[in-house]
């Protein structure tokens, strides 16, 4: 059965590119437009991995990360941050909040799939 990835980004262009990449590799993709939308969808779908942007309206990716880690299903699910942010301080915050990994945009589709393959087998 195909593994399911929750892809979260407020940019429709990025969501399109990420979904195209993941679907092409055989993953099921659920898209969310911000942290709040992602949290709602995470509660109704048990996904295998979350890939999230950080700078988003309503709820940002770091808040989403913190809230997901409080849910029993998401305590150990890989959560990857895909962001334009590359500063050490924000990266440390993400790591402390339970991020599995950090990918700085612009993303390389091949590298993204390698990382995802590594963390969810």
């Amino acid at each position: 059965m195909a593994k399911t990835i929750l892809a979260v980004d407020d940019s429709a262009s990025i969501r399109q590119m990420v979904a195209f990449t993941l679907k092409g590799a055989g993953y099921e993709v659920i898209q969310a437009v911000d942290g709040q939308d992602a949290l709602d969808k995470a509660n109704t779908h048990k996904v295998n991995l979350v890939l999230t942007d950080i700078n988003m309206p309503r709820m940002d990716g770091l808040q989403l990360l913190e809230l997901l880690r409080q849910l029993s299903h998401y305590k150990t699910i890989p959560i990857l941050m895909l962001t334009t942010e590359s500063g050490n301080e924000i990266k440390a915050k993400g790591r402390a909040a339970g991020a599995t990994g950090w990918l700085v945009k612009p993303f390389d589709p091949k590298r993204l799939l390698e990382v995802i393959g590594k963390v969810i087998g």
Partner: protein
Amino acid sequence: MTEIIDDQVATNFYFDKNFNSQAVKLLPGEYYVTDKDMLLVTVLGSCVAACIRDCQSGIGGMNHFMLPEGGGDAGSPLNASARYGTYAMEILINQLLKLGARRSNLEAKVFGGGNVLDGLTVANVGQRNADFVLKFLQIEKIRVVAQDLVDVFPRKVYFFPKDNKVMVKKLRNVRNTTVSQREKDYKLRLHKVDSGGEVELFS
């Protein structure tokens, strides 16, 4: 080898006597966002600039970029060119949101994409940049309220975000090669970009 693209915040500040205003000049690859009453200026050849502002708060910003050539199938949504353009636009939008702009209030004025650079291996590079920025804004549902794109002249763009005003001067008689040389240098830097940003796994 991954090379991080050096998109940068513009730092060339000056006082513009003509407009009696604090100003910042953007070079190729730079962006600037502000919630202050000031002037953002750039000179465009084949590059494009998006002037994006929150129509309620007046928070606004501008970028100045071009797409790199090549990088895979030109028709694919995943080609390096489209990924870089999307990144350049996202950086600007993210900084506007950080300053307090609301995504739903954003509107854009877009300029440039003149076919003014010679020695390019891709025909109509200006048209390509112009097409990209319009398509991106359409996908993102950001209203384009003004545009002056393509043609064959470089342009000087003056953006006053607080006043919601843009002035564009077409440079029909350019006496030096500064504009085209800056864009050529920028284009060479972009050639080094064919992969993505850094990746780090924490566990």
